[in-house]
């Protein structure tokens, strides 16, 4: 985000008040820094400037100078004379310069806005009652703030197609489009998939895909968030829920180690959509489409909803007693998870230390798209390093566990949300080894496990993920979990307590963070939970600089350069 902290500042005069703004920013952002809104549609801080909506027209002037001598021309009272530009200029394409004068509230400016609003609404269908954007629509907001208040348009409005399919996830309502071209610029500039364009002329101008193409890239739904009006709608969220019912929670996308900041919206405990949240250090304002689907896992068919002993449903207390009985005094192997939060991984590691267990962890890798879907498809692999659960970089298999099982070095397993069969663990080696499984979704391991303890998805709990750039980011609970399911932290602290009869660890974020801070040599020293809750905190990653991280160069991410010896 543009902040006042930027190095070089220039003085400008904003509505008669002298203020300082960072050098090189445009007037829309400069005014926003000082609490003045310059309404705009086509301008987006993370896209190129198009300047076609004309909503941000303002009056601008610069101190006059003598053309020959270059000296400032002074007024009668000794102040520099301002040469006002005779016509209004657009704020988005005008950068600040020292001594610049700007009027954002003059009569001329207000008149301009009124006129532009009137033109934009000429062919607007006014179907707010059915429009998904209603409630978060710039057209609604600016019409009330800067519009004329009534329509002088008596002619018949244009009728355009209302449900054009642009791609598998995006539906276009042509009548609502104001031709701001944000979506076109986004596709060109961020996913570099130039697929959208305008065809036809005048009031029949239409957004469309190039012939034979579809808006089907993995970032297509960002155009829906970008759209200042209700023209681009998400086929998934379309007509599902009005936005004013939704409660938002700040979350982190668990899809990959990119750690996109997201807003998870729910109503009455039901999740409806995931949208990106602006963080200029991590994901700008974007996120992949695939990450937006993840809320469906909360209500999926394979969700584990109750504790099981030998596949028979039981209470959590019974399952916990049985789990402790199975693990106690054995040579435990613990399979951690890169999907667990930092706090959970720390507690798992505590269990491992106290019971002298062996740690295993598997990485989940796939193709890197070079933007916001990284090769590491788990949100918190670096958390496993930071929490001390593993020192080595995880492989995409658990062959080492398979070997240990074969050599009978491990005779009981605690598995956190991992599928051992998929991780190439020899099924023959698992015979006779009791497995305690903690996880959200059923898989072959949970089907084989002696004790299954259900846990919560990242939408139902809060915690910290460490992303690919070693930013520790906090995610908040969006919805309550299914009845009777304990948070992972409680499960783990009860297991720890049962296995060691040690003093109890209070299963809340604060006490776990205090413990994490007290670990000797931890990179979390001096960082409190409050800091992480406030904003992304960059951790010192020098300790792990020679690990073979799989992520490729991407948006806001540079792989660590290995120094060749």
């Amino acid at each position, binding site marked *: 985000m543009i902040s006042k902290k930027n190095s070089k500042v220039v003085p400008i005069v904003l509505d008669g008040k002298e203020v300082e703004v960072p050098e090189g920013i445009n007037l829309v952002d400069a005014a926003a820094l000082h609490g003045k809104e310059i309404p705009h549609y086509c301008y987006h801080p993370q896209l190129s400037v198009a300047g076609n909506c004309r909503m941000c027209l303002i009056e601008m002037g610069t101190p006059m100078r003598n053309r020959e001598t270059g000296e400032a021309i002074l007024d009668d009272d000794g102040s520099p004379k301002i040469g006002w530009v005779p016509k209004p200029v657009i704020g988005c394409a005008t950068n600040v310069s020292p001594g610049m004068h700007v009027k954002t509230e003059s009569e001329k400016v207000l008149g301009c806005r009124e006129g532009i609003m009137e033109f934009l609404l000429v062919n607007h269908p006014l179907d*707010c*009652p*059915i429009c998904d954007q*209603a409630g978060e629509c710039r057209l609604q907001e600016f019409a009330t703030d800067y519009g004329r208040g009534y329509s002088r348009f008596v002619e*018949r*409005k*244009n*009728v*355009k*197609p*209302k*449900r054009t399919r642009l791609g598998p996830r995006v539906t276009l309502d*042509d009548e609502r489009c104001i031709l701001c071209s944000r979506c076109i610029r986004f596709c060109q500039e961020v996913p570099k998939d130039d697929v959208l364009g305008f065809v*036809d002329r005048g009031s*029949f101008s*239409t957004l469309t895909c190039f012939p034979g193409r579809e808006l089907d890239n993995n970032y297509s739904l960002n155009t829906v968030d970008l759209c200042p009006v209700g023209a681009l709608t998400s086929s998934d969220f*379309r*007509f*599902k*829920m*009005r936005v*004013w*019912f939704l409660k938002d929670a700040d979350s982190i996308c668990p899809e990959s180690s990119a750690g996109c900041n997201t807003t998870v919206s729910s109503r009455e405990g039901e999740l409806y959509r995931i949208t990106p949240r602006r963080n200029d250090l991590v994901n700008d304002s974007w996120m992949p489409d695939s990450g937006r689907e993840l809320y469906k896992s909360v209500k999926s068919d394979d969700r584990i909803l109750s504790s099981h002993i030998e596949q028979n449903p039981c209470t959590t207390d019974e399952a916990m007693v049985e789990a402790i009985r199975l693990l106690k005094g054995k040579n435990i192997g613990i399979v951690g998870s890169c999907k667990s939060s930092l706090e959970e991984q720390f507690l798992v590691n505590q269990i491992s230390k106290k019971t002298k267990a062996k740690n295993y962890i598997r990485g989940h890798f796939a193709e890197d798209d070079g933007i916001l879907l990284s090769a590491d498809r788990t949100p918190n692999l670096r958390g496993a390093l930071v929490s001390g659960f593993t020192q080595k970089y995880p492989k995409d298999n658990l062959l080492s566990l398979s070997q240990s099982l074969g050599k009978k070095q491990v005779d009981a397993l605690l598995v956190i949300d991992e599928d051992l069969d998929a991780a190439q663990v020899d099924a023959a080696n698992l015979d006779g080894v009791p497995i305690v499984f903690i996880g959200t979704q059923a898989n072959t391991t949970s089907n084989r496990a002696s004790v299954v303890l259900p846990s919560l998805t990242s939408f139902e709990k809060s915690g910290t993920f460490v992303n690919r750039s070693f930013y520790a980011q906090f995610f908040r609970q969006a919805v309550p979990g299914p009845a009777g399911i304990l948070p992972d932290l409680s499960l783990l602290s009860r297991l720890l307590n049962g296995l060691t009869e040690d003093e109890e660890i209070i299963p809340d974020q604060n006490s776990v963070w205090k413990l994490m801070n007290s670990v000797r040599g931890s990179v979390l020293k001096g960082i409190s939970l409050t800091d992480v809750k406030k904003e992304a905190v960059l951790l010192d990653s020098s300790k792990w600089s020679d690990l073979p991280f799989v992520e490729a160069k991407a948006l806001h991410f540079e792989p660590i350069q290995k120094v060749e010896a």
Partner: protein
Amino acid sequence: MAKTVVLERKPLSLSERTYLPQIATGLKTTFSNMFKKNVTLQYPEERPVIPQNYRGVPTLVKDPNNREKCVSCQLCEFVCPPKAIRITPGEVPEGEADREHVEKAPKEFEINMLRCIYCGYCQEVCPEEAIFLQQEYSSSGYSREEMINNKEKLYELGGVVPDKHYKWDKKKKAEQEGNSH
């Protein structure tokens, strides 16, 4: 402290002590009413005339073309003070001849009459003039479930009302007469 004052009661006069004048006055009122028009109604056989702006049971209405007017914008659900309204929005499939241009309609629409306080906010807020508190005032049932009016019941209660706008017909006309694309 307020002072307590004891008032002497006036002694009753002779006529007051006989009570006869008072009885006569009472009987006069009784007999005069026997010759006036009845004010009570034999409910439920007789029903009162309901005034024009009466706020009865909320209902959903259709326009004279028998189209449902509600587009499930959920503003009534939002504004309802006792949260009696619950709407499940739904999409109208493309290509229905009688519902051209209509994109959205409620899949389910429930009003819990045990919660409803007949305030009329839903009628006031409705941008499509689809919900009206009409003249029906007596709703009863044997169970709580029965007191939740579903979409079918609401349309049955609402019936068809005259329409000033014919919104969708106008849109169709605009499309046919050259403003289409």
